[in-house]
């Protein structure tokens, strides 16, 4: 991997340029980098499981953000009813989400694997609808949040004070990425999963139980959205429709990174996070920051496609 990158001068140039930009920004307005990186952590943490599903099970999961919000509601319920701390709730939530992933895969998605991609897409759209509206019926549209003292933690460097809790998303994203890369590259099951991702038919021929890989990878990814759901609840309000915009952003990030590429997601997230943060640092231009998000995605996809042509 490393030597492959070094062989391509373009990567080195781009890498150095971005490092230079980040250093300049740090001098000019350090909070741009701080908040940009925090934002990137949230984006990456949510998009990584989606990329995992897309890369191995070959499904665009339009219920992705909704799964995360479902996990957040389960966490909320655990915290509120049993007085658990959200971090203690991580374990049961992850287990429950894993099982939920298995159930949903078994009873719905599995039956559409042979159908065209489009059917799976709309199936997950239906799932998103059922999850959202189910939560709405049980918990109403009223936003909920647990109030936690440590999420207001801050640090002061020189004259700027900034919130530090957001870095927890970076920690989570890094851990999820490292864990997934270890799993996919070093474990037998993970290698089999990669093989399935690259060529399901081939994998089946050499004796890999493709269906088992599918269901376990899907459930694993849903369990990972569970982790993000727990974290999301600590710093954001949850309501049934909250997941939709994260589904869309993850979807865009996954495309920008290259379908199924995990490290690509992290780079794409950092780029987008800092770019958005940069625009927002100009007072009155925050409304345009979302344009940066979508425009960058289009530009990257187009550049990649033109490079691919040659």
């Amino acid at each position, binding site marked *: 991997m490393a030597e492959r990158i070094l062989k391509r001068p373009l990567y080195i140039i781009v890498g150095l340029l971005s490092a230079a930009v980040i250093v300049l920004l740090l001098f000019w307005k350090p909070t741009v980098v701080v908040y940009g990186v925090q934002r990137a952590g949230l984006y990456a943490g949510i998009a990584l499981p989606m990329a995992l599903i897309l890369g191995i099970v070959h499904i665009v999961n339009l219920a992705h953000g909704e799964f995360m919000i479902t996990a957040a509601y389960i966490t909320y319920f655990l915290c509120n009813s049993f007085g658990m701390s959200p971090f203690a709730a991580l374990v049961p939530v992850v287990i429950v989400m894993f099982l939920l992933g298995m159930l949903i895969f078994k009873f719905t998605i599995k039956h559409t694997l042979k159908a065209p991609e489009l059917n799976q897409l709309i199936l997950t759209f239906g799932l998103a609808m059922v999850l959202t509206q189910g939560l709405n019926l049980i918990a109403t549209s*009223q936003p*909920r*949040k647990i*109030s936690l003292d440590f999420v207001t933690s*801050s640090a*002061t460097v020189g004259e700027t004070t900034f919130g530090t809790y957001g870095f927890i998303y970076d920690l989570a994203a890094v851990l999820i990425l490292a864990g997934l890369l270890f799993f996919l590259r070093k474990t037998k099951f993970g290698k089999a999963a990669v093989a399935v991702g690259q060529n399901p038919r081939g994998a089946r021929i050499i004796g890999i139980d493709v269906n088992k890989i599918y269901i376990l990878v899907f459930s694993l990814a849903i369990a990972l959205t569970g982790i993000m759901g727990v974290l999301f609840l600590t710093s*954001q309000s949850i309501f049934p429709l909250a997941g939709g*915009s994260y589904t869309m952003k993850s979807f865009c990030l996954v495309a920008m990174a290259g379908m199924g590429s995990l490290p690509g997601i992290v780079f794409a997230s950092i780029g987008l996070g800092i770019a958005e*943060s940069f625009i927002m640092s100009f007072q009155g231009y925050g409304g345009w920051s*979302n344009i940066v998000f979508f425009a960058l995605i289009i530009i990257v996809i187009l550049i990649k496609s033109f490079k691919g042509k040659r």
Partner: protein
Amino acid sequence: MKSGIKTLVLVLMILLISTALFAGGQSEEGVKPIKLGGVWPLADITGEQGSKSAQLAVDEINAAGGLLGRPVELIVIDSEFKPEKGAAAIDRLATIENVDVFLGGMSSGVHLGQIPTLKKYKKVTVWTGAASGRAEEAMGPDAAWYFHLHPWDYNQGASYVEGWEAIGAKYPDLATAKWFMAYEEGAFGTASFNNWVELWGDNGIVEGESFTSAAFGGGDYSAVLEHAKEANPDIFVWAGYAADALPMMEQTKAVGFEPKTYIGSPPGWPSDFGDSPLAENVMFYGMWTPEMNKINKISKHYYDAYVKKYKATPETYFAPLGYTAVYIIAEAIKRAGTVETEALIKALEATAYESPLGETITFGPSNIIQHQGIRRQKIIQWQNDKQEIIWPFEYKTSDPVYPFPSWNKR
């Protein structure tokens, strides 16, 4: 070729069945009930509770013998927050359910789509939502049958100016000079800010910046808060949604921004907001709070009845507004002795309803329409997990606490 025919037959059948399904209106003999038709977004807490509160009022009226010797029936249809669905709901209520009066509320976007349809039927309409001045423009000055309860956005802005001037006069420490408003970038926040600048611009220095509400996938306010901190205002206001409430407080604390007065103005609060120590002494705008029960018997009655019937507490002011709308209609029908439109309009014009919201509601002209009900919002403050009203003084449940306590002393 054969398959083409089969499918065509299928289309024909579907068309016929679907029209047949819709054509079916019930015809019941006996005493014809007075029918009220309500349209709310039922999946949203405002619409869900607004419609249930309206049903509560209808139940009470029926328990007391109905109106004009006839029972009252409320037919509720979901607008799904979609303009075309909201408009179709009006069509259904008017032509199939044959309702006598329309009511409903929430979301200017839906209401804009309904207005042409409402104009088509010209039935008496009592609306509890839609604050956007665009909706008033669309309704125009001629609609005598249109009674709008919720203040328009400029009414709200004017009432805040009035309120803050009154507060400044009574509590000189609270007299304010410099404002900073963080507003969500959608219609609600932008209209709030524009009205505020227009009304208050001369009296104080108003700065502002928009943010993406958590309700639409935002939730990171750090940039706006940093700019607010640099501006160092006396009063910091954010105009967003309930989902923004706690994260906004937390991030304000995290960036070390401590304004002397802290105002949040969502249409409703998240259910656990008061539990947070950060909520203490945040001020906000609204039309009703459960603390109203202390000073208003109707509010207390409504609140207890709602809790008893639905095993939940009313969370936003849209809930008592739904209840209010039904009673305003009911009293007018009693006065008019008929549900005939002309007479009912006359009777509604004479409305003086003591509402659970505190004020006695009467109708008078606003900038464009003829019949505007409520014009003022209230200024409320979180004190010990309670939403105490501090202005208008006639509904005051507590004195304001000032200045906003430092984050570290909570």
